[in-house]
């Protein structure tokens, strides 16, 4: 067959030609640009507008950052150095670095204490955030609140030890009684802990000496980003257990308990945080026994914790509602009672579903800690608007300071949300 064919056609190629490379317009970067940036007139227009926007932003921001002055001690000095050239006076950050981080009243010779507490925070948070780490590290996490309190506030070491002792006693009482009944163990532990603190309070008062290892720093001296971190971490960690209790209460069959929780949650969620901070600032004192003085930071922590626990309760309620009913029935059919079913079956799954929501609340709460500047506490924003902008040296430096504050919050909040996305992928056990 092929022979006859060969004679009718003038030329037949007997070897295969090497494959030609694809047209240059259809490969590599050019193809990508054509497909992603210039695939139609609308797309091209959008691209050009975006490029123009980025160009404008860059010409505006880049000289400001690149010409920045980092080592002068006042605004007028900085302007002398710049001599009319566009540039940021970032020296306000280096000059007032400690004030921005620690507030203007924290004794400067003790800056190492909150810094150390901050570094230890990562060590304490690591085993909670990453499950692969050895579980033994959790012991340090448990000890961390007391260490951090002692480092930041100073004073007698007996106070945090007593607080820890209360928890330890409570834990042993719980272990002792939980086999008989969860309620008995739970309430017994609470009573035992309070009894320890109450009795221990007298002992500590009697024993504690005046000259302590770490000098006491009063709460009103806390300020700067440190205050935001303290409020954020303390309130988030305290609001989690309260939020779980509130969510369980709202799901409960007992009408009175359910309605107490519903009213609390809806009330707190219905009012802005600022009004709650006003309550902490001016109203809360009316509801305490006459003559008690309560420091402002503690009152604020109480109110923010209430605020956050209402939001976390709603998130966890969502998680509880999302569990298939079969899980509840399975727990019942195994003969578990309510506390066991919750602890062993329901909550582990519900909390896992709620993680993204909880992280959202945590990020939101951390951002909301800046509101304390409204009730004249000197957190990062309060420091900037108060002592720094009001000082004669730096009156008029807005952008550098607020960009710094924005950047600091961005780093923390973006970091947390990236972690939560990683965790979500880690915990995804459903096979899709």
């Amino acid at each position: 067959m092929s022979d006859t064919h060969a004679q009718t056609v003038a030329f037949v190629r007997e070897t295969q030609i090497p494959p030609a490379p694809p047209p240059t317009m259809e490969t590599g970067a050019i193809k990508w640009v054509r497909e992603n940036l210039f695939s139609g007139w609308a797309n091209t227009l959008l691209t050009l507008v975006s490029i123009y926007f980025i160009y404008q932003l860059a010409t505006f921001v880049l000289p400001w950052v690149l010409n920045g002055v980092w080592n002068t001690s006042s605004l007028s000095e900085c302007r002398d150095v710049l001599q009319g050239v566009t540039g940021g006076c970032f020296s306000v950050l280096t000059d007032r670095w400690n004030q921005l981080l620690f507030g203007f009243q924290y004794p400067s010779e003790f800056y190492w204490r909150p810094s150390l507490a901050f570094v230890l925070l990562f060590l304490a948070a690591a085993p909670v955030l990453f499950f692969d780490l050895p579980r033994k590290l959790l012991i340090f996490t448990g000890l961390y609140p007391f260490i951090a309190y002692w480092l930041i506030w100073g004073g007698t070491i007996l106070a945090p030890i007593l607080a820890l002792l209360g928890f330890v006693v409570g834990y042993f009482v719980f272990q002792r009684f939980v086999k008989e009944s969860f309620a008995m163990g739970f309430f017994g532990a609470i009573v035992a802990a309070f009894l320890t603190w109450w009795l221990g309070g007298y002992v500590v008062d009697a024993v504690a000496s005046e000259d302590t290892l770490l000098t006491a720093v009063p709460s009103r001296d806390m300020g700067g980003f440190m205050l935001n971190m303290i409020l954020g971490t303390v309130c988030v960690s305290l609001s989690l257990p309260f939020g779980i209790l509130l969510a369980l209460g709202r799901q409960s069959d007992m009408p009175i308990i359910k309605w107490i929780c519903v009213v609390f949650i809806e009330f707190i969620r219905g009012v802005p945080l600022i009004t709650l901070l006003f309550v902490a600032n001016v109203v809360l004192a009316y509801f305490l026994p006459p003559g008690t003085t309560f420091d402002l930071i503690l009152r604020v922590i109480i109110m923010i914790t209430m605020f956050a626990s209402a939001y976390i309760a709603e998130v966890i309620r969502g998680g509880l509602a999302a569990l298939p009913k079969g899980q509840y029935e399975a727990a019942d059919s195994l003969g578990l009672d309510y506390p066991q079913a919750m602890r062993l079956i329901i909550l582990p799954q519900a909390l896992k579903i709620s993680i993204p929501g909880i992280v959202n609340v945590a990020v939101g709460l951390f951002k909301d800690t800046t509101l304390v500047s409204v009730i004249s506490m000197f957190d990062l924003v309060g420091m900037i608007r108060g002592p720094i902008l009001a000082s004669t040296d730096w009156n008029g430096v807005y952008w550098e300071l607020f960009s710094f504050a924005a950047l600091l919050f961005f780093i923390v909040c973006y970091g947390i949300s990236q972690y939560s996305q990683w965790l979500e992928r880690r915990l995804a056990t459903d096979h899709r």
Partner: protein
Amino acid sequence: MTTLTDPPRESFRLSMLINDTRYRSLTFQAIALVILIVIMAYLGMNLVANLAAAGLNISYEFLGEPAGYDINQRPIPYDSQSTHMRASIVGILNTLIVAFLACVTATILGVFAGVLRLSKNWLVSKLMAVYVEAFRNVPVLIWIIIIFSIMTVSLPGPRDFRGDDATASMVFDAFAFTNRGVYTPKPIWEAGSTALIVIFLASLVAIWAYRRYARKQLYEQGNLLPVFWPSLALFFIPTILAYYILGRPVSLEYPALQGFNFQGGIQIRGSLIALWFALAIYTGAFIAENVRAGIQAISKGQTEAAAALGLRPGRIMNLVILPQALRVIIPPLISQYLNITKNSSLAIAVGYMDITGTLGGITLNQTGRAIEAILLLMLFYLTISLSISAILNVYNERVKLKER
């Protein structure tokens, strides 16, 4: 065959309150109630004792007394001799104004950013991702203060508009951006403007009626009537015709530089603009995420199914994707509106006189009636958020998937 007899009736024993599930919940509730009452009584007694010690009482009479302070943005007539009650009402109106403006702007921004973030254009989608992440992760208070600083520090003062070598100039001769606020033209309603408004409203009704008619024609007769162009014509033509026939009853008053400041027009203060735009941009980033999630929640099969039925791309979006996506988008959107309203209380940081600034700020400080003022303040916000939740519940009930 065994016969079943009822187990012998147990008499009630006290231990059954703990051990019998039938009674245990009653025990717990009783304990909870008692604890609640004890706590309330304790707080109440402390309150009474503290008030007695300070020589105070709970009374709302201060609402009737003259306020004695000025408010720089007055939607209704108000002067320093007006009562605290009136000051609070001005504050409420100011809250609602900024909340409304911010909600509208945030929705527009959020929908644009959310849709553009899904764009096939790599640059645009990355740019929108940067917008969303940058604004979501920085406290709104910082944004409010930054925009307020732009408004008060970076913009030129009114005297920069003066003279031949003015360093600043008005935009379109109508808008002046100064550090005392933005001046815009103000409409002057003259005789006959009522008729104009009535005609405009009537044309809106006509548009609605026409669209209804067109839909009825489509469903019952199968005639596809044009909708877009007639609606557009109905919207503009009657009003514009009436405007000229009635002899131009509405004119604009332009702001003009007189003395040291601009006169005439509407002055929008820097504090309002700061609050408005900061809330809008910040919340817009959240809305963008909701919109994106809503659109992505609709499976691709829906688009393909609609295309298989022969629908054009525009109709696929309008008739198939959007109605389903809106079900997902609107509930979080409404709670974002609620957040805007609550966050507008941050007005106090830039001196915008909303309800927190009047009732919770100056009135509280002048009268010292902290408990009453904050109670009223909370009541106001609670009313707003509970009514928004009620609307949300009604909506959710209406759009709930009708399953089995």
